């Protein structure tokens, strides 16, 4: 069962998170406003394909690794992507559960499930970090922000493993401290790519769907 925590930890788990979350929401709102201020070119040509179908396809490819040549060949990388992002989503979920409905994550099987997911996601993060060091083509494009973001996410997931049982106050402080930091840092870092994702997939899908190039008609005959 969850432990009783000090007023400081309680504030960190609740009010501090809400403030950080509000900050993040404001920055994202400003960011979306900033993005929409760049002109979207006017399409004057009549469509050859179907824009709506193109957009649906573009959005759906995230769950269809066989559709992109890259994830079809490197399917393990897609699995790694899925595990990593499921872990992050679970950790985000836990940051809401623990302060307000701690009993929902109190049962041992639930705790173990969270720990398992966080552990797998941590391994995925470490694998990604290792690849950035080991693969020359990734080393060449890796910025300090790329490494920092991955390392901090890995640390956050480890903190999640430790905090999930809700029995150690230091681990809760570490987990929620990192969460608050992330909420402030993420909108400025590469991690905010998820905010761009629906926009870019929408435009790519509409653009290629308009021309009839999406959905692709490729008939692969190779691995």
């Amino acid at each position, binding site marked *: 069962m969850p432990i009783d925590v000090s007023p400081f930890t309680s504030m960190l788990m609740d009010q501090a998170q809400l403030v950080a979350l509000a900050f993040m929401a404001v920055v994202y709102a400003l960011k979306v406003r900033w993005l929409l201020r*760049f002109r979207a070119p006017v399409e004057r040509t009549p469509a050859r394909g179907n824009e709506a179908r193109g957009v649906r396809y573009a959005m759906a490819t995230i769950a269809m690794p066989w559709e*992109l*040549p890259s994830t079809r060949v490197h399917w393990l*990388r897609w699995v790694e992507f899925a595990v990593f992002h499921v872990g992050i989503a679970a950790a985000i979920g836990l940051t809401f559960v623990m302060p307000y409905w701690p009993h929902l994550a109190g049962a041992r099987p639930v705790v173990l499930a969270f720990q398992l997911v966080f552990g797998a996601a941590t391994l995925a993060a470490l694998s990604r970090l290792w690849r950035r060091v080991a693969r020359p083509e990734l080393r*060449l494009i890796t910025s300090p922000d790329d490494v920092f973001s991955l390392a901090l996410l890995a640390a956050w997931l480890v903190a999640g493993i430790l905090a999930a049982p809700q029995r150690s106050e230091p681990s809760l402080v570490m987990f929620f401290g990192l969460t608050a930091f992330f909420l402030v840092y993420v909108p400025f870092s590469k991690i905010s790519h998820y905010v761009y994702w629906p*926009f*870019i*997939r929408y*435009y790519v899908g509409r653009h290629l769907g308009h021309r009839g190039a999406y959905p692709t008609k490729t008939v692969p005959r190779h691995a």
Partner: protein
Amino acid sequence: MTSAADPSGTISIDTFVEGFHEKLTRQAVLSFASCVHCGLCTDSCHYYLATGDPAMAPAHKVDQVRKLFKAEVDWLGRLAPWWVGGRSVTSESQLRELQDVVFGSCTACRRCTFSCPFGVDTGLLIRLARGLLTAQGIAPAGVLAVSKDQWETGNQMAISQQDYLETLEWLQDELRGETGDPEASIPIDKPNADVVFVVNPREIKYAPLSLLAAAKIFHAAGENWTMPSVGWDNTNFGLFSGDDALGAHMGKLAYDQVIRLGGRKMVVSECGHGFRATKWEAPNWAGMDLPFPIESFLETMVEYVNTGRIALDPSRNPKPVTYHDPCNLARSGGITEEPRFLLKHACLDFREMTPNRQENFCCSGGGGAMSMSEYTQRRLKVARVKADQITATGATAVATACHNCVDGLTDLIKHYKLKVPVRNVCEYVGDALVVERPHVAGLDMMPASVRGRTVLVVDDDPDTVVYLTALLEDHGLRTVRARNGSEGLQAARQERPDAITLDIAMPGRSGIDVFTRLRSNRELASIPVIIVTGAIEFRELVYHRNVPPPDGYVEKPVRPELLLMSVRKVLELRHRAAAPPAGDGR
């Protein structure tokens, strides 16, 4: 004439950076901002696959442009650029380095875009950078030369209207000979035609067989078609150079003709970038809502087959044929099934290339690469990927639907010694046409008007000289031989031949040197020169334009009908130019 290039010729870093801000669209910003450097695009790129060079990974190449975005636009990057990999442009040398990346290391084929989980549009970002560099006059010489010609003459090969019309007239005679129909025509400026056909200047200058095939198909289908006397070039170097103003100018030139003639639709001949630019890009660049539809000739031919307007006999093309998808048709144009439909109807043994359609690899000559002789060796090196693809099909012939791809594939086939000919889809369709009228005159026939004319054959290979002279003499021409460049120049001065066939790769004085000297000599400059070579350096003569380009081009190993057709074309056009003018009622 207006051009985005700075007329003063000076390079301004401030203008470059200001231009960057002005060119940022929402899609470009998203493509800059979304990349997470996952590297999944890496092995989608033929440059990387062929070289294994990490710097050739698409993410790294586009990062050379993204650096500027990070330093100038990204919120965190403006405070701490080093943290996010940002770096602004501060020197001309950086721009020169950028030229090597965006022109010399990427054909903007967009294959990586289809591999990217986000859909980062590398082609869009590369073109954006190309446009900024071109505006500063920093671009490969061939790109600048061809762009200038498009601005000034309305076509990329600076073909005069007289040459264009005379070539069409000559082709019309060929069409009549081919079809046996004395009424067969290539109409010029016919009002209210159902089809206004625009072509690649290469078809006028060097590859009349594809235009002849198209004319045969239109004739067989009984099409009410025409070609415009101006604004006939469907190619658009604005797409390659990133110069939207040129892109709009070229598009508008062609659109205005369809409107002027009251045409029902515009049909674009088999040219990948020409189709993309004309149908998809230029209306947006020009801000025009077109009152007529635009389609690829591939679509037109499919309609003819489906409606029974033409019938095809696949046994006329018995050899195994594979198809190379031009990037601008498949990935940027959505055309993948039409050429397959046609080839399956026109050939007995069609073999799919792997991967294919939107996943097919670039021919390596796209994005204007054929005009960038600075990067020829790199282009041929990375073409290994396409060479391997072709070899794996086991096909003995390649079809494609793009003249640029024909050139790119021809070069790589020569380089990798694959020995498979490349032709456009319409040529296969033209060969497979079931026509009622018999074939009357062959392409290799030499008319009386040019028999007895003198052709100087310049080649260092004795066997080639014997072969070419025997071929020409068998068809009623007189020949003079020269075994090297110096002899060739001397013979040209002494004999004043009616035409010259010239090899490029010769010891001592090269064919390029000989050609340049011929063109620079006032007395010899008008002698038509047909380049007969296996050397890829020929492209320099076509694109760099220090002197007017050659009048013909025949690949080695020589296909006799192509050589004879090229020789006949230049001799007949020369003969017509010398003869008193006579109207033909067109």
